[in-house]
């Protein structure tokens, strides 16, 4: 050979070989997920306070099932289980699920929706990072579609001191022993609206709005004052989510502009809607405080995986999502629309990615100077 080559094989034993760059920012996926989980905790505790301990059980079921599912998936794909779990994404999914599904959902439904979320929505597409749909939202939609009556019967009305009524024992009986959730539901409702129970037909405000809308009535039936005690839980929960969101922003984990644009679009779309379809569209403040808007704004649409890629894409994504939330809330047949809106936007994300492709370096280049 005229040109002998030195192979790296022999020398690799002596010197370390690693690709450039040799520096790293230090922010890792696992850390991101852990911080996200921590940021959810205030809202989670508040939920427990206002909805009782159902939430805790749901979280335990979700997390346990997710753990098993992730491990199974890791085994099936012959990856290291440890590595697979260390990204902690299952934790975030479990937390969000426990916050979105009705607190009294029977355990078998929770298990199956978690299995669906983790195995089918996430792992079947290739695991973390490859899933098209947000697993938590997909799991929730799974529940909504497959067991609407259960959802209707197990949602609770937030009320001060619900943790005293919906105790660990009481919720355990309902979730695991299949006791009827209805008495508890009624109690909480009475607790929440001591004066005008009859005005509210559903367990949640959105539910009753929907019913009213379907009946053709005006949905601005109640004047909602969030400082007043029976609606204040919504306000405090929203504040808790916002606090978590601010923490995430502080750690630069979520993309600020996206959140801002989302909030702005909700305001714009709902005000516009209020102008033209005043009987079906809720005013901006109610849009924010009822249902899952706040958690969506800070924790769900900001999920990097199921989002568009670039900054421009993300902003487009959040506008689309806000629009869908307002639209489906006004004209859809389910009580809340966040999950559907998020999933629809998820589906549109690849398209957004294509449409918002960034210009290449120097493409604006002209011969000058």
């Amino acid at each position, binding site marked *: 050979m005229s040109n002998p080559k030195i192979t*790296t094989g022999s020398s690799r034993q002596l010197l370390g070989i690693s690709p450039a760059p040799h520096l*790293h*920012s230090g922010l890792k996926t696992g850390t991101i997920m852990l911080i996200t989980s921590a940021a959810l905790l205030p809202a989670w505790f508040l939920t427990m306070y206002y909805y009782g301990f159902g939430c805790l059980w749901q979280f335990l079921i979700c997390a346990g099932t997710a753990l098993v599912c992730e491990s199974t998936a890791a085994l099936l794909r012959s990856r290291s289980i440890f590595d697979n779990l260390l990204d902690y994404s299952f934790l975030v999914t479990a937390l969000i699920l426990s916050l979105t599904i009705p607190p009294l959902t029977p355990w078998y439904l929770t298990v199956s929706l978690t299995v669906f979320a983790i195995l089918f929505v996430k792992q079947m597409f290739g695991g*973390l990072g490859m899933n098209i749909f947000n697993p938590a939202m997909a799991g929730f939609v799974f529940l909504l579609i497959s067991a609407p009556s259960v959802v209707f019967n197990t949602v609770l009305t937030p009320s001060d001191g619900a943790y005293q009524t919906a105790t660990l024992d009481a919720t355990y009986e309902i979730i695991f022993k299949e006791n009827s959730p209805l008495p508890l539901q009624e109690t909480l409702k009475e607790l929440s609206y001591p004066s005008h129970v009859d005005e509210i037909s559903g367990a949640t405000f959105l539910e009753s709005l929907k019913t009213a809308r379907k009946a053709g009535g005006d949905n601005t039936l109640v004047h909602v004052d969030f400082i007043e005690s029976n609606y204040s839980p919504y306000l405090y929960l929203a504040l808790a989510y916002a606090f978590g969101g601010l923490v995430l922003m502080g750690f630069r984990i979520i993309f600020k502009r996206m959140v801002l644009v989302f909030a702005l679009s909700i305001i714009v779309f709902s005000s516009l809607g209020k102008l033209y379809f005043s009987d079906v569209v809720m005013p901006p403040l109610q849009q924010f405080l009822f249902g899952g808007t706040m958690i969506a704004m800070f924790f769900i649409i900001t999920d990097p995986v199921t989002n568009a890629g670039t900054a421009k894409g993300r902003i487009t994504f959040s506008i689309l999502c806000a629009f869908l939330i307002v639209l489906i809330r006004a004209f859809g047949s389910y009580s809340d629309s966040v999950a559907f809106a998020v999933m629809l936007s998820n589906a549109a994300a690849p398209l957004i990615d294509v449409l918002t492709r960034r210009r290449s370096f120097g493409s604006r280049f002209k011969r000058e100077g």
Partner: protein
Amino acid sequence: MELDKQRHKISAGKIWKFFGGLKLNDLKNTSADRILDLKLPNLITLPIDRHLGTGGQVLVTVGERVKRGQQLTAPDSQNSNLVPVHASTSGTIMSIAPQVLPHPSGFSGECISIRPDGLDESIEPKPLSRWESLDPQVLIARIREFGIEGLGGAQFPTAAKLQSALSESSPDYRLLIINGCECEPMVTCDDRLIQEKTSDLLQGIRILKKILNPSEVLIAIEDNKTEAIDSLRAAINNMRSSTGECIGTLRVLPTKYPQGAARNLIKALTGIEVPYNVHTSKLGIVVQNVATVYAIKQAVVDGLPLDSRVITVAGDSLKLNGNIRVRLGTSVRFVLNNFKLKPEFHQRIILGGPMMGFTLPTIDVPITKSVNCVIAPNSSDLPPRNNQHNCIRCGRCARVCPSRLVPYQLYALSKASNHAKARQCGIADCNECGCCAFICPSELDLTAQFRREHAIQKVINELEQRNAVAKERMAAHEARVRLEEEKKAAKRAAALARINRQKSESTDSDKQQDPVQNPQEAASRQVSGGRSAQAQEQTELKISRIIKAKEADAAESMAAEAAEQPAQPEQSTPTLPYNLKRTAAPKHVPEYHKWTAPLKHVPDLTLVGIEHSELKSVELPTKTPEALLSTRESSEPAKPRLPEALKKNSTLKHKR
């Protein structure tokens, strides 16, 4: 109008922002260390491959004694991109043979080794006196002859850059940018050079100004080098007050990685994004590193060729850190020994900065002009990377990429061997700055993958070029064949027409004199009619002549064809037979990629860690017949290699 505005903004000192980039921790703890001279090593190794070109010559022989500054090679005179190599100390030529080069894969190349005699005798320096009055071309020639190349890392020949700026850009607006950014963490050699050699630098800038006659000179420096800024500012003011000459304007830029990359720097200073496929010098923008400017000054004013450079030696595995001036060709091992290396297990030795440098597979490699830093980190200093996770599409990489790419997308495409798509998405614009891999929370080796992808893209380009050439030749050949066939057909038709005409003519004449129509019958009557027999003979002769001519024609064309066929391999590269059209299609055509020719030409890829299977989607159009031909062309030459390889394998197995 817009142009003027832009220029006005530039001279007004506006500083633009370039997209992406990172604010990194400086880690520049050697910026207070004076540049020291490293003692002479006991071996100097000077790589010469890239300085020779095809027609270059080595001017020395083994055993010859050389002095410092003596020219060792004469580059190919056709190629103005090449510069000669000079001895960096006095000594004896030990060998002219392949040695390991500073390359991430430990490639080797032709090198001249010198054993220094310790006297360090140098040849007489040849300063250009009164260079101010010389022609720019003379100065450029000097810069080339004295071996000056970009010392910032790219090692682009300075003379070629200046020449192209002179000849290809309009003289009415030229911009000279002196790059003192040094954006890489840990590296401080340029910083120190500015601090210590300020006046020499200004001299160098004056030389460059003399050559280029720029409308504007910008000296860019990042705001974390306060001392360098101070000394530069003082020197510029000094010069202005003493000679009245304004050497240029100092631009203090906010620190941001990778500002030192030419295109990002141009963007920051001028707001112009120069695409990656356009040379900046063609626009009249010349970016020169401060170390290069210093070398230019030395070459022109002091008459010393480029034979040493300043490097930073840093890292926690070394007892000492600092900046040193080393002779080119000193081995990394010698440098590290002098800085008291205490190696840890699997010690990494990084050549270049921590962001773009590469780890060396062996430390017995020479320091070349492109090396600005040697780092020997330990695992707490620059922690090694952990496991890679899945990409979570967080988009951080896209936000920091200064080339406006979407790295996670490119990564996925490249991993999936979708090279055509990767090219579409702009892999060529990636300058391997490492920002994306730095920020990636999943710790993906994005930049490493892009490096690999670049290598693959290079192979694909070569392949495509070859295919294009082959196709062209094939088309030319087909056109020629067609033309000849047409000619033949025309001749044949003409001949036939002539025969028919003559036939009818002769029969006509026969008819006139003889009622018999059949020429054979006429021949049988030869005896009876002398005149008609004569006519008959004539026609027969004519016919036979025509037939003979036709036969000769056919033979000629066949001969031509025959001559053509052996001639083809001569015209083409021997690996590509062009008469494939006539051979039966090989049965394995759909799988041609398994044994394609490129593999033969890039055995090196394995060293970079490229699997041959990654080349499988080297896409060749398969629809058109020409394309089919070209695929066959590329599949054909590899065919005979298959059994060989198999044989080898089987013998190996037997041995075991």
